[in-house]
């Protein structure tokens, strides 16, 4: 595959907003979730993300009409472009910039707000604003409208594997030379219905703490946020954070990720016992691993946050401290804090058996 370079990062999660705040959370080693009391449910811990920083880019009048989901996406997009040294007043070749937006669930709150309007006011008085903003590609549309981007746009939705689909899409556009750069982002939001599902499916309690490697009971805590990447062909220009040098995706029913012995890995473990079993089965016994989900919780955005952390680690050439250590019986070593890294692979297994492995290397000129 053609290598891509990450030349800009835009991130917003429970750890804060931007690379500086993510780096700080990584050094600090933890983020405390907040508590959300949901209708008919107990208060459960959730990794929420704030979009206050978006006011740096858009005025309140514009923001009033944009929901939390699209705000998260806009924040990620603006941050990634700014980080990639774009000047918003003059984005060159807007028709050569592609937007790929990935989401596991789309604009959930607005979807339910539309249903509220039907149930409260009747079929004839359903909210047109909520309907048009509930469509999955509304966030991508807000990005293209606010930034004047007229290149190709794609919104993808594949639950936990939405992000890897997006990486594949971005790579394809760059390889076909349809675009000069791609703004690739993943966004998902928490809402009370999701919290209820979490409680019912996973038995999450107010006292639950995220234990990403848990194999006895579920400890996945819901998260939300946005992670955006400005991607360019590797051969094009400056070094950036890291190179995406390879990618694999498939299903355990037919294949397995090819992971080298002793390779440093960032694992997408989120505290689901079923997926933990897949990691145990498919990872080399001598892997050196780190997992950072206790900084942002479980959500379809988590694999993208993993990639952002890998990019930051590769940029400085050293791993960040891992907030959780793998259980001794796995045989895996913890990727030690400060150890030199030249390559990193982010590995993710979904509950349905889908897997992805994204190989990254240090930037090069």
């Amino acid at each position, binding site marked *: 595959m053609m290598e891509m370079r990450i030349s800009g990062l835009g991130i917003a999660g429970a750890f804060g907003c931007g690379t500086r705040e993510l780096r700080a959370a990584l050094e600090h080693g933890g983020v405390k979730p907040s508590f959300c009391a949901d209708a*008919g449910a107990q208060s459960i811990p959730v990794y929420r993300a704030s979009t206050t920083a978006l006011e740096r880019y858009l005025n309140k009048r514009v923001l009033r009409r944009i929901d939390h989901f699209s705000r998260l996406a806009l924040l990620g997009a603006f941050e990634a472009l700014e980080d990639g040294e774009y000047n918003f007043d003059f984005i060159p070749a807007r028709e050569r910039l592609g937007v790929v937006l990935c989401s596991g669930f789309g604009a959930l709150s607005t979807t339910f707000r539309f249903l509220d309007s039907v149930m409260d006011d009747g079929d004839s008085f359903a909210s047109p604003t909520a309907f048009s903003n509930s469509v999955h590609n509304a966030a991508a549309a807000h990005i293209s409208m606010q930034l004047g981007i007229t290149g190709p746009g794609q919104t993808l939705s594949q639950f936990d594997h939405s992000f890897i689909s997006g990486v594949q899409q971005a790579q394809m556009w760059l390889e076909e030379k349809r675009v000069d750069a791609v703004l690739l982002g993943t966004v998902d939001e928490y809402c009370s219905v999701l919290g209820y599902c979490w409680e019912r499916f996973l038995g999450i309690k107010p006292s639950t703490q995220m234990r990403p490697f848990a194999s006895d009971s579920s400890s996945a805590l819901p998260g939300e946020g946005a992670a955006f990447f400005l991607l360019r062909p590797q051969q094009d220009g400056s070094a950036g954070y890291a190179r995406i040098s390879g990618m694999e995706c*498939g299903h355990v029913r037919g294949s397995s990720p090819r992971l080298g012995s002793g390779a440093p890995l960032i694992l997408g473990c989120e505290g689901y016992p079923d997926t933990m079993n897949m990691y145990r089965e498919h990872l080399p016994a001598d892997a050196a691993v780190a997992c950072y989900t206790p900084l942002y919780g479980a959500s379809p955005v988590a694999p993208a946050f993993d990639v952002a952390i890998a990019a930051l680690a590769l940029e400085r050439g050293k791993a960040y401290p891992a907030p959780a250590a793998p259980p001794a019986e796995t045989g895996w070593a913890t990727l030690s804090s400060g150890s030199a890294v030249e390559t990193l692979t982010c590995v993710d297994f979904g509950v349905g058996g889908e897997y992805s492995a994204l190989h990254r290397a240090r930037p090069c000129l």
Partner: protein
Amino acid sequence: MQKPGVGISGAGCVCGAGMDLATAYVSMLTGERNPQAPQRFSTTHADTYPVFEILSPLPAPGTDAELLRTTRLALSAAHEALNDAQLDRELLRGLRVGVCIGTTVGSAMNSEEFYRDFRSGKTPDMAPIERYLRSNPAAALARHYQLDGPSQVVANACSSGTDAIGVGAAWIRAGLCDMVIAGGADELCRTTYNGFASLMITDTRACRPFDVSRRGLNLGEGAGVLVLESDAVLKRRGRRARGYVLGYANATDSHHLTAPHPEGRGLKAALARAISDAGIEAQQLAFLNAHGTGTPDNDKVESKVLCELFPEVPVVSTKGYTGHTLGAAGAIEATLTLVGLEQGRIPANAGFSQMDPALGLTPTTALTPVQGSIAVSESLAFGGNNAALVLGLEEHI
């Protein structure tokens, strides 16, 4: 430089016009259409907005009640397409087969029954959520056929089906897959019915794309699927492609959430890039299958662009026979475009009787013979997405 076309070895379609592709096309050629009030759900609107609903039971394997109807529609169309390509699960084994499906409803967690209970403080049963979680259309198809290639759901609103086929063709061209099951699927439901009614773009009569009296769209449901196959695998199987995906492009308006750019900026760009991608000239087109929803805005912008770019090319909108099937529309229309090329004739643009002088476009008014082996199928979408596919009967022009 002209890129190689990507072979289409099979096609399947289920929609309001017919339960399979051949039946649907025959019914269109004879001018049949029968939009009516929704049968599977009721609403309290004072007016009735007719729809093109599938009332017959879905063919196997679209019968699994544990899946969303959208996914079952996709399974039915995929089954027809794979049969058409003379493929079965056994033959797919050992091949790298991808799945790319466009949808809108299939990716939305919007069970009214569940949510009504939730918001009233009850403890709703989780079955509707479980059904939603196992019904991602691409993942469900991959699971059903035990596939291990890439799988992707495109959620670009009404251009999703067109985009999914374009993505699938790119996977073949890049050597990522030997074969791709690509298309789109969407079901009719109260959420989209109420949503489109709230936007005041649904008609109380049968839709009339491009006609001076048009008042809006009719919703529909269905699925369209193409089997895309690499040249090497086609040769190994001793099969000849029915047709080819010659070009594809997608561009955004950057204008409005639900209204197209008044000058058709994104549509023009998508069409120009798709034509360039295929390495052809506009005058080589036998016909163009338009988005043609019947809404005042869509038809106005689309006419403007088509009159400017393709003044001599016959235009038909098939939505007068199928309704607007949202995420399935582009895929259903791609299958119909393929059959139109094969048969060398396209149906009358149902609902059209009088040209709108503000549009200046006259689509087909009767069953129309067409000459040539290349056609375009295009889609516009909420969010300002525009997508175009160039399909042909020959790999090289």
